[in-house]
């Protein structure tokens, strides 16, 4: 069962994982499950909407990176929506901003996801 705090919704036919305010070692396993669930819904990739998230520690980043690697290997792609400065900051510190495609709004992420292109 995916963690209740990580609902997988669907927007414009694309699975969207909505992350909570805080992601850390206590709920990273739930995130990993939800990401696996979203990835399993089809080959077209999925979106992780982190616009509500104000804190994400390395356990959360590892879950995201693992899902990004698997999504890349299986053809689909994972796209992030990052709006908060705190999440943007941790992505910059870890160099992940140059690795995982990310967008400033859900609309942009969805447009790219359904278009199926690999650019960010």
């Amino acid at each position: 069962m995916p963690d209740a705090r990580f609902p997988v919704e669907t927007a414009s036919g694309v699975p969207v994982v909505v992350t909570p305010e805080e992601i850390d070692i206590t709920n990273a396993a739930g995130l990993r499950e939800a990401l696996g669930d979203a990835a399993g819904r089809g080959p077209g990739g999925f979106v992780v909407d982190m616009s509500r998230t104000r804190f994400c520690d390395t356990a959360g980043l590892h879950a995201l990176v693992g899902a990004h690697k698997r999504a890349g290997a299986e053809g689909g792609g994972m796209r992030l929506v990052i709006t908060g400065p705190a999440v943007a900051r941790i992505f910059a510190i870890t160099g992940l901003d140059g690795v995982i495609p990310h967008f400033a709004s859900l609309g942009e992420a969805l447009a790219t996801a359904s278009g199926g292109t690999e650019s960010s």
Partner: protein
Amino acid sequence: MTTVRPASVEARLRDIQSITDAALSRLDDRDLLAELLDRTREVLQADTAAVLLLDFSSGQLIATAAAGLEEEVRQGVRIPVGHGFAGRIAAGHRPVVLDRVDHTTVMNPILWSKGIRSMAGVPMVAGGRVIGVLHVGSLTPRRFTAGDVELLQLAGDRAAAAVQSMAATADRVAVDALQRSLVPSALPAVAGADMATRYIPGSGAVGGDWYDVFTLPAGQVCVTVGDVAGSGLAAAVIMGRMRSTLRAYALETADPAEVLGRLDRKMQHFEPDALATVGYAVLEPGLDRMHVALAGHFPPVIARPGRPAELADIQSGALIGITPDTRRPVTTVPVPPGALLGFFTDGLVERPGEVIDEGLGRLCRAVTAQSPEMACAAVMGALVGNEPARDDIALLMIRRHAGREAGADA
């Protein structure tokens, strides 16, 4: 073919009691497993009882404990999941009863050559997955009943719990030993600099943080610090490999980005599931400057005499284990006499419910250009205090001497 002992309700309760006896819990896990096998053999009136544990890396079941036919364990019998009697139980997640034991039904020749005629086995399940198989065998032909299999499954569940507990303890002991052997026991003597370190294994899932410091033949000082994703023995083993790989590549090239690039290629080829952050710094022989490349790791904190400490302004490249053939930026940081550099892992600065900049800010406020030992003490006091460490913490401070006694060629 006989059905042994059509048990009365009383006898059956006694059998269940024997296997689920709370007194068993007072034994340590290994003794518990041995006692449980003896009791299982007794209540089922079987001649042998054995536990095979699944080795997840090879996908084989390995004979681990036995009562009656100890050769299985002594010879290290291995059965691939999906094959033979035990392999079918593990693959199918359900009990199997055999009325005919020969090379067509059982892979392990010890069982049929010793004259085992009938067998029953159950999966041992922990945390929703099969971790092994418990089976019993009889030297006389018989049919194990559904009731026998139920009792056997009770014993299997009990054994699974004992094995889980044993594995957790063994893992913890091995990780501690590994971490002690991997964190350098003595820091190298470097003319013109002092160093100090702290290493605190996390309270829950211990894992893969490390630091290392060593000198190169041309006189440079290399500092590496890193954090392998995951926890437990698996992460600690990968951490050990990465640390020695970095030492090997450090001898081959002075370019930090090249060292990290080679490390990344090696990891992605041989450990494709591994993820890690690494910071790699090379201090020139005179200690005037430091060349740094980061793979998703925090930059070091730098305290120059008379100025507030700050995070060194270094752009990070990708983590180890994600993208093929990426080149990470190399930043050159001037290190004035008297300056203190601090390398650390996330456990030092991350707190639940807190933006990372708060932890980084606390770190910068705690660091001043003083002796590395005092600086370590100040940082640990300010950032850890009396809290048990949730995550591993590694901290390495290195300070260039102030004044004329500074570098070798100052």
